[in-house]
Structure formats: C-alpha cells, structure tokens
C-alpha cells in the first residue's frame, strides 16, 4: 500500500473532498506526525500503535567486516509499538491471553 492508495480511500470513503484536497489532507496528517516526532514527542494512535522517539547514547560498536571497534554517535531513533488491537488483528486465531501484554509473546 502506498500513500496514493491512502489518498484514494480518503477520497472514496470520507466524501466531501476533491481528489486534490484528499491528497493535501493526507499529506497534512503525516506532516503533523513528523513535526511532533521531530520535536522528540510521541504520537499515540489508539487502535493502531504508538510512535516513540528514543534517545540512544553514544556507544562503541564494531565494523562487522573488519572487527575494528568504532564509535557510534548518540542519536535519536523512532520505534513503533503496535497496539493490542493491531496485534490481535494480525493473529486472529490466538486467544487474548496469547497476545496479552504480560506474556512473553508480547515481545
């Protein structure tokens, strides 16, 4: 699925928007999310999942080809934590217990 298909869905299902307006509003949704994440805040979409920015400290890694230690600079990374709903949708045959937060399968 691409952004163009998302724009089509909005155009067809929401109604009231031209194709151009649908494209602009979909762009706006992701633009806002990007700005919020760029500020270091998280974005929580109930029923889908959370986008969380994490600060990573500087650490020493290794060049896997040469085995030489190299310094990996401090950086920010973005992680996505799927919601319980999304996990259940992907695993419809499993019981709630199986996909529960407190069981190993949550990892």
């Amino acid at each position: 699925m691409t952004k163009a298909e998302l724009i089509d869905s909005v155009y067809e299902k929401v109604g009231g928007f031209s194709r151009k307006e649908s494209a602009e509003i979909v762009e706006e949704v992701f633009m806002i999310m990007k700005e919020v994440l760029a500020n270091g805040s998280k974005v929580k979409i109930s029923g889908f999942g959370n986008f969380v920015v994490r600060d990573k400290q500087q650490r020493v890694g290794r060049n896997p080809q040469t085995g030489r230690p190299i310094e990996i600079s401090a950086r920010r990374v973005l992680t996505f934590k799927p919601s319980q709903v999304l996990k259940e949708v992907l695993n419809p045959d499993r019981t709630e217990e199986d996909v529960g937060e407190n069981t190993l399968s949550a990892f």
Partner: protein
Amino acid sequence: MTKSELVEAVAKNRDVSKNQAESVVNCIFDAMLAALEHGEGIELRGFGTFSVRKYNAYNGRNPKSGKVVSVPEKRLPFFRVGKTLKALLNSE
C-alpha cells in the same frame, strides 16, 4: 500527541471541521490496519514503511519465574523509519 490531538491539529491547519478531520484520520489508520491484516506492507515516502513479519513458534521463558513457556507462531508489524524522518529526528 494522541489521535484526538492529531485530529484537532489537522482540522485547524486545513480549516475543516473536527468531524471531517476525524473521519480522515480514522480512514487512514483503518486502511493501514486492513493492509497489514492482509499481510501487505505499507510504504509512506518520507515517513517510513511497515511490513508484517512472521515468527515461528518457539520455547521461551517467563523472565520472572524462569518457567519454560511455548510461544505459538505469530505475526507482528514491523516499522522502518524513512530517510527524511530519520534525518529530521537528528537535525539539531
């Protein structure tokens, strides 16, 4: 930011009603959820990509009790951040 705050921001920036903005935001995430449900990946230029990974069943341990538990096979969504957003996160 929560989904309702996202809805408010979209409504304000695009000068549409909150109801319309909410329908758009719901439509987007419903469509994304459906794509993942069908095992389809999602590619959003500048933001990132989502894919579905299948994990085989394995025996794990409860980290608290140390007891062996069997973990059935499962599918999990996987998100990879896009280049533009990655650069934005580290732009200071």
